[in-house]
């Protein structure tokens, strides 16, 4: 049985640069953390590369909780990438 895919979400200018708001992907087993995932995603298209070009301004969440790039991911997780929040 294959592992459940990740759901990857993009918001604000990451969504615009990536050219998509959501995708379902199953990265290789070597992708263990958010940082690994960013490296892997960046190689998928020019849009992905543009979205992840400035890692210092990218924030992320796993299953709707903010997390650090060092956070571990597991099959089936919902991973969201976005700029620092500007609500209120």
């Amino acid at each position, binding site marked *: 049985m294959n592992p459940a895919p990740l759901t990857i*979400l993009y*918001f*604000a*200018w990451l969504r615009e640069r990536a050219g998509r708001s959501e995708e379902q992907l199953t990265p290789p087993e070597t992708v263990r953390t958010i940082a690994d995932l960013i490296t892997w995603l960046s190689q998928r298209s020019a849009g992905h590369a543009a979205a992840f070009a400035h890692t210092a301004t990218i924030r992320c*969440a796993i299953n*709707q*909780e*903010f997390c650090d790039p060092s956070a571990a991911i597991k099959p089936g997780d*919902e991973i*969201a990438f*976005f*700029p*620092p*929040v*500007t*609500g*209120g």
Partner: protein
Amino acid sequence: MAKVNVQTQDFDIGAETAALTAGHTNIGGIGCFIGTVRAAPPDQRAITALTLEHYPAMTQRALEKIAAEAERRWSLLGCTVIHRHGRLELGANIVLVIAAAAHRQAALDAASFLIDWLKTKAPFWKQEHFLDGATTWVEAKSTDADAAARWSD
């Protein structure tokens, strides 16, 4: 339990305050804050509207956590947080926070806390619309991070 709404429609501070206080006689003070869409200063490019994007699956929960923290820290007797999303014209309401407590300092501090944490911990992103149709994403301000840091985690 706080009332937390994420919605496109406008809110009514009078109705929300009345709902919060109905039946309570131990409330002595109610602190409120409303954030609104402000025109750009004269020396900056003119804004015509904002669009608020958010992360639907996360927003409600993030706001509930912030409100629960305020209720805990200040023993609030009532707490309401309403945040709008979608396109909002100049002058429109964006966000409402209300905190009710026995004493005024708790109510006012809790309202300040709610808006400070909301600015840095709720998944919303503002896009500015300009007269010529161009748009830009608002950058996070370091002053907002500083304001949120006044209330240590």
